[in-house]
């Protein structure tokens, strides 16, 4: 198991290269098997993961550009472990859901496998440049997927997605380089190793600017208001699998970046910026939820709802207490599962009817009961019903955030109201009422392929809703460790006050 992380990262890429040779007709089968192996590997990682150890595990380190302090440095902790598993899972299910008659199936599979490499790479990297490398590289397959298999405006959407995120991450790169320079100034050593960076104490002013630089990269990816407009476009135009992966995994890169970079490296600035981030996040939560309500396109509703939920995640990340942080990491997973499933579901109906406009449907519940049921389950998970996966994270985040701001919590808490407003409106428009069109009468319910892709997600939604402990515990451990690290690392008293690892200690 020494090199399991490297295997996890590069196995899909190698498989992707080999995939060029695979026959067109068996491309999907190939993709499914590779993704399945990857998932098994990821689960194997979990099996051998030491839950009690909150630090980095399975670390690998080998210098690449020693002149410049860049090294291949990977590791996994409770925060990244499950995101990786989720990425592998979502990729697998996404491939399963692909229709056999997808054009250029082989290219699709190859792009997906490369995308999987970049996703796994981002979450496992412990070197800033390697992180950045995977981060940027993830744009390329996504660009292709959106641009080649998307809707009528796919090129615009894909290019917008690429350029927007690229611009932001270049500013982030400047931040990373500046950080490395500051570290060099302090210690005389060039390094991009995150764990080394964690030890560096920066002045408030330095932290302020570095935070802004990191913010540019991460916030656009999240996407935070007002940098979110690429997302509806990308989702609106992307093919189902593109939306699924985008929503489930790629967006998490942004929030993960905040957790992995901003918080531990820049604790003081993170606390300083908390009100700002909170303000943006609250706008994000409420404003985009309202925008979601105004949508006519089912997919857009879910796209905007993604933004809204990402706002909740952001709130949790900056709540600076174990409940909020752990909750937001959990929420990343649950949002990944749920939004992934919802996008899959939209894809299903789109494949059947060729439209995503809600007004075209109506009464689908009668025609496609299983579909409606699964949709309903995911909808309930999305609005945060207890005993579904959606509740745990949302509850913890709001709980954690309450310590920071009561008014803010009430505002953020409106998500449970307005979230259900747009989701229920969606459900009512599409599934309830009489059938709008005669032709919808003949719609087939989910077939085996779709059920194979969706039922595991339903199972996870319920399982983790009822019994989140297996993943909540390692997340909690790592979150606490991260907060302790922040606390030790911070220089301002106000920061130490803001961070609450365990309130028993405070009392």
């Amino acid at each position, binding site marked *: 198991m020494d090199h399991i992380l490297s295997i996890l990262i590069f196995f899909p890429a190698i498989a992707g290269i080999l995939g060029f040779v695979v026959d067109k007709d068996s491309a999907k089968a190939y993709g499914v098997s590779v993704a399945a192996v990857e998932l098994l590997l990821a689960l194997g990682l979990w099996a051998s993961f030491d839950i009690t150890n909150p630090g980095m595990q399975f670390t690998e380190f080998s*210098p*690449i*550009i*020693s*002149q*410049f302090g860049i090294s291949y440095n990977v590791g996994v902790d409770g925060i990244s472990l499950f995101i990786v598993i989720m990425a592998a899972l979502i990729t697998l299910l996404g491939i399963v859901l692909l229709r056999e008659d997808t054009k250029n199936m082989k*290219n699709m599979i190859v792009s997906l496998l490369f995308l999987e490499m970049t996703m796994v790479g981002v979450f496992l990297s412990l070197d800033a*440049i390697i992180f*950045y*490398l995977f981060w*940027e*590289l993830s*744009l*390329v397959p996504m*660009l*292709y997927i959106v*641009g*080649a298999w998307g809707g009528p405006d*796919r*090129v615009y959407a*894909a*290019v917008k997605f*690429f*350029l927007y995120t*690229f*611009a932001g991450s*270049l*500013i982030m*790169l*400047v931040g990373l*380089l*500046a950080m*490395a*320079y500051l570290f*060099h100034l302090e210690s005389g050593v060039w390094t991009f190793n995150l764990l080394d960076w964690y030890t560096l104490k920066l002045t408030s002013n330095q932290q302020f*600017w570095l935070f802004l630089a990191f913010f540019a990269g991460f916030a656009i990816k999240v996407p935070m208001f007002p940098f979110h407009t690429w997302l509806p476009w990308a989702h609106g135009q992307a093919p189902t699998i593109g939306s699924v992966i985008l929503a489930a995994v790629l967006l998490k890169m942004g929030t993960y970046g905040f957790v992995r970079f901003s918080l531990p490296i820049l604790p003081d600035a993170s606390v300083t910026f908390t009100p700002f981030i909170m303000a943006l996040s609250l706008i994000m939560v409420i404003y985009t939820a309202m925008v979601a309500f105004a949508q006519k396109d089912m997919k857009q509703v879910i796209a905007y709802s993604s933004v809204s939920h990402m706002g909740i995640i952001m709130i949790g990340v900056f709540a600076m207490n174990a409940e909020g942080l752990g909750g937001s990491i959990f929420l990343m997973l649950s949002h990944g599962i749920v939004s992934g499933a919802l996008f899959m579901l939209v894809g299903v109906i789109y494949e059947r009817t060729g439209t995503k406009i809600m007004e075209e449907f109506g009464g689908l519940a009668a025609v496609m009961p299983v579909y409606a049921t699964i949709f309903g389950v995911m909808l309930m998970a999305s609005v945060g019903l207890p005993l579904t996966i959606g509740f745990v994270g949302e509850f913890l985040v709001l709980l954690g955030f309450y310590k920071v701001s009561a008014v803010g919590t009430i505002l953020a808490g409106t998500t449970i109201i307005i979230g259900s407003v747009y989701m229920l409106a969606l459900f009512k428009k599409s599934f309830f009422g009489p059938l709008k069109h005669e032709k919808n009468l003949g719609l087939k319910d989910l077939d085996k392929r779709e059920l194979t892709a969706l039922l595991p997600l339903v199972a996870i939604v319920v399982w983790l809703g009822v019994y989140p402990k297996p993943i909540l515990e390692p997340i909690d451990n790592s979150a606490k460790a991260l907060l302790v690290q922040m606390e030790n690392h911070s220089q301002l008293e106000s920061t130490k006050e803001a961070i609450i690892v365990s309130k028993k200690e405070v009392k």
Partner: protein
Amino acid sequence: MFIDPKNITMDVLNLTTLMPMLIAIGGGLVILTIDLIKENIHKSLYVMLTILILVIDLGATLGLNFGPNEKGFFDVMLIDGLSILSQILVLVASGLFIPLALTSKRFHEYSYPEFFALFLFMIAGFQFMVSSDNLILIFIGLETASLSLYTLIAMHNRHNSFEASVKYFTMGALAAGFFTMGSAILYGISGSLELYQIAPAIQSRMGEPGMMMFLLGGAGLLLTAFAFKLSLFPFHTWAPDVYEGASAPLAGYMSVVPKVAAFVVSMRIFEMFIELQIEWVQTIIIILAVLTMTLANLMALVQEDVKRMLAYSSISHAGFVMVAIALATEKANTGIFLYYALFMFTNLGAFAMLWVSRHKNRIHHARYDHPYEKFSGMVKIMPMGAVVMGLFMLSLAGVPPFSVFWGKVYLMSATIDAGHIGLAIIMGLNSAIAAYYYLKLIVYMFLREPTAQVTEETTYYNVSKPLLTILGLAVFVTVGSIFYVDPLIEYITEMMRATNFGI
């Protein structure tokens, strides 16, 4: 210091310093002689001969002793790390670009051995230019190279190429005027034409009244000349037209080799000024660099032709690298060479792809050889070609882990180290703007349907095995850059430490 004619010894002359250039010149003469003896020899002989000469030349270059004060021939020659490094770069680039002559279709310039002779003379000119800090030799080397280059461009023998050549030539003549005037002022200040003597002279006279005027005026004039060579705004106007008019291999070549040579001289001259604490030069260079990368990027956005787009992109890259000169730190200097070493291969690949798809008739567009439409849906026709071109575009855009990214990171890091955070951000944002036009090509290749004219026949028109080999090499180097950047940085840094920057 007058050297008595009687007392000249071979040791003082250090004749070996001339070896590389002599090999190139000799090679050129050999080619001319062969042509005299027998006409109509197939171009492949000349290509191979040229490569052979370049290899020998490279061997000779690598065999030279070098050091910050390794001079030869009455101190006219200066073989320091910078010189060796740039010569290596020039020679390697030349050796990689010249095989592009071996196309399946016949083009005018390659049918005449004079092309190869001039090519070698040009290389000799560049080599002289970079391995001297005597302004006369720099000037003569520069002119030799330039005059050859003008001719090489014109030898493509099309309306476009004459126009390009004339534009380049005329502006070059003007630039020569500015260069000489600038040199005259430096000479006036210091009574010397050698930078290592000019520097202390300036330093000792800095306080004199009116001296600043001369210094800045001289710097301004010289900057004009080199800004022209480096295609900095607003002296870049020739570049797009010349790239468009020249054949693709030559255009690609021009985006690397003359620029490297010009950068070397700029480093020698302007870093001297900067190290003399003349901040004006630094400021102006930064302004020029920012203007260049930004405006060139903006103009590249609206291009319809890939080659022209690449021309603007080369301008923008030059602006990006120009920042390093303003910084004048060891890291920045290393960055220049790292950047160009990496950029070279990517650009080689990109222009080689254009060359592969070069068609004699302009079937896609009345004016352009390589309009974007030509590449639409290329992934369906030549998937590997499209993927390869896509990789080059991503590399140029600075997407990791492809080669140019490392150059970018290194230069940005150098910029940050020097305290110019804002500049680094501008550099970053410019890369983002640039990504748009690189993406545009990717979009055409991958996300559009092929037009009626785009067929296997038309896109593979000019392909040949040597071209594919070069392409393969370029891809290999571009993609695998992560593995050799480390030794490259190490080597370049070592060379930079063995360099004499005047003061």
